[in-house]
């Protein structure tokens, strides 16, 4: 476990250096961006000094890193607001979106996957396999546009772009997140169902299943109580991979549905050369992905005690 933590820290360090380096390479002057094309040379020079842009790259990196480790990611260039306040306000939005889609993913795909396995080769199975194949082929952003058009414009179930802040109206906020979350979840539902179906079918031929039946269990109870436990391990890895993937997917979906979350901020801040914000978001994302991977490891051990012990 210790080794895993060290490698996690090393990864974070590498990520931070990469992001810092990338910003040094791409053209674009944050001071010019802030003061505009009519600015005087003196004020530009003053702004660069104030932003600390005149120092050599390693010095700038060291300065940033020291602050960051001490819990101060700096102040946003574009908003003159501390990054913590800025992102602290937006983090719940993206977290809610990702968790919502993850819940949708699990709630829809597990029953559906098992049902598929149960009705293998029958009409239900075939129809949904084809449907799933289609959904998988649609990129989430396009699915988002389709959902907006159909439910927003044609059926008018929700107001496209009618996002409300979670501070203003938590229920309305969650309601608005339903379709974006669905757009993120659906393609993954299709994949999860396919995987779960295959795993369940593989397990179903094993001896313990026959034993379970012989003890008088119903099909459903065998599938949920016995088969699912064994079939779930590969699916769990897949779901964990998906969780990290969904965070990435939320960047795009936030754009499509006009949700002002972390993803929107990442895009805007890169375009606006707002280094402190970009650094903070990327570090956060990296930490999240590493964290999820560590957690997945832990979950393995919980589900199957035979795993672990070494490390």
């Amino acid at each position, binding site marked *: 476990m210790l080794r895993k933590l060290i490698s996690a820290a090393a990864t974070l360090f590498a990520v931070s250096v990469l992001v810092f380096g990338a910003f040094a390479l791409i053209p674009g002057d944050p001071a010019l961006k802030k003061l505009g094309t*009519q600015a005087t040379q003196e*004020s530009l020079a003053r702004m660069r000094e104030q932003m600390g842009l005149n120092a050599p790259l390693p010095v700038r990196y060291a300065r940033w890193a020291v602050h960051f480790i001490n819990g101060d990611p700096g102040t946003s260039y574009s908003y003159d607001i501390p990054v913590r306040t800025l992102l602290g306000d937006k983090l719940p939005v993206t977290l809610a979106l990702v968790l919502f889609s993850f819940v949708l993913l699990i709630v829809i795909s597990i029953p559906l996957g098992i049902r598929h396995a149960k009705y293998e080769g029958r009409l239900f199975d075939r129809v949904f396999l084809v449907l799933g194949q289609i959904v998988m082929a649609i990129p989430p952003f396009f699915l988002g546009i389709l959902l907006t058009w159909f439910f927003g414009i044609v059926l008018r179930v929700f107001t*496209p772009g009618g996002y409300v802040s979670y501070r203003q109206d938590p229920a309305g906020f969650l309601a608005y997140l339903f379709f974006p979350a669905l757009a993120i979840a659906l393609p993954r539902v299709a994949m999860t169902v396919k995987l779960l179906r295959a795993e369940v079918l593989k397990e179903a031929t094993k001896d313990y299943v026959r034993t379970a039946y012989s003890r008088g269990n119903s099909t459903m109870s065998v599938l949920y109580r016995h088969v699912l436990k064994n079939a779930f391990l590969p699916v769990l890895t897949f779901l964990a991979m998906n969780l990290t993937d969904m965070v990435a997917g939320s960047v795009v979906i936030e754009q499509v549905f006009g949700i002002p979350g972390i993803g929107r901020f990442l895009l805007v801040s890169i375009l606006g050369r707002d280094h402190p914000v970009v650094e903070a978001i990327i570090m956060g994302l990296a930490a999240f992905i590493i964290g999820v991977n560590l957690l997945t490891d832990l979950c393995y051990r919980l589900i199957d005690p035979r795993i672990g012990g070494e490390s």
Partner: protein
Amino acid sequence: MRGRRALGRALLPMIVMSYLAAALGGCAGGKTADTSSRITIGIPQDLDSLDPHYMTAAGTKEVLFNVFEGLVKPDQSGDLVPAVAESIDVSEDAALYSFTLRDGVKFHDGTNVTAQDVRYSILRAKEAGVNSALEAVADVTIPDEKHIGVALSAPDSDFLCNLTCAVIPEHNADPATNPVGTGPYKYVSRSPQENVVLTRFDDYWGTPANIRDITLKIEANADAIVMDLEGGSVDMFARVTSAQKKQLSDRFRVYDGTMNLVQALYLNNAYEPFSDVRVRRALSLLTDKQGVMDFVSDGAGTPLASSIYPAFTKYFTEELNDLYPLDVGQAKALLKEAGYDEAHPLTFSIAVASNYQQHVDTAQVLAEQYAKGGVQVTIEPVEWNTWLSEVYTNRNYQATVVGVDASTLSASALLSRFRSDAGNNFINYSNPAYDEAYAAAEAAVDDAEKTAAYKQCERILAEDAANVYIQDLPCFVALNSDYDGYVFYPLYVQDFALLKKADRN
């Protein structure tokens, strides 16, 4: 509304969902909100600053026009009219501008505007260094509580336009997060990348605004604008494209105007081929402006031949458009003279900011038009900040398509940059005749003389084909027909105070 609450329970399987949706569709579809005193206006990007002396984006200035005012401000025809000041007196030599302050002008926090506040504001804006023109302010004097004098280091009869600079209270400790002005709307709150909320200022000195509450909603995704308008989450958007205009239903009225900018293929005159006037002229002869307008915005737009757009009625010379009619034969002859033919074709690249679709489209049309004259063009899309630093500041490019706007309606706003020593002369234009004409315009105190000299500058740029001038782009403003009263200004200004609920009887 009820449709939403049903969704709040969520987590129902898809099929049930769509059934519910169909059942509740009717209720949710009806207009529920009272629109009499509130409007949601979509803006394409978040405000770059709330501090009026530090804001630089045209998109920020045009909406905060409603919150901040200077001693003077532009009216609907672009003329400067007194705002915080009541009257203006310019000294004979145009080096001292004296103002009498208007009685009873209040800041949004309820305090009265004092001469001290005005002095503080002008000096603070100068110190900020965002508008370099304010460098000319030598001193701001307060002869008495009702008067203020702005002394310039050198005479300048065009300086008044810079005194639109916002008047803010000296006692406000944090203008960046708590903006206080004197305009018809006051700031309420902001959520970055989400919205900015304004409300009517009831103690406004002038004609009060009609609509009480305004939400400026940031529409970061250009593809969602039509859906947001149709869905009802946005009532107005000031920059729809001609394609979006066609998609809008009749619940929207689209106002046609112009963007008030000079769109051109700006040529880096220091790049060797473009230092030859024959090459520049050949490109102008190869350009079919109508063809560009047809492709980019279905024929809308106003052709231009120099760095003056039609809102500058005093200077705009339409005849210049006849200088370079489409003539491929003559263009080829000129290019041959300059040493370019089929064996040695002229090749160059156009850098274009990829976030401006109109400019990207224009560059593509130009590339095809130039191919007919044997000119090979490559298009190099760059992201906006790269464009700013590489093209605009470092002048490291060959040609670029962009629109140049004016912050004021004085000709100098568009023409000063082409002086050979101008710091913002991003095309590296250098022509002694132009410098001379411009100096004459600057020195002239007599208005007719000044106008004539500026017109001479305009003509030189056209004849010398300094750039390949194309058009003043059309601007389409979509407004939900529940409202009306939208008015175009000849500058980057959105006057929300004039918007009102439409009469339905």
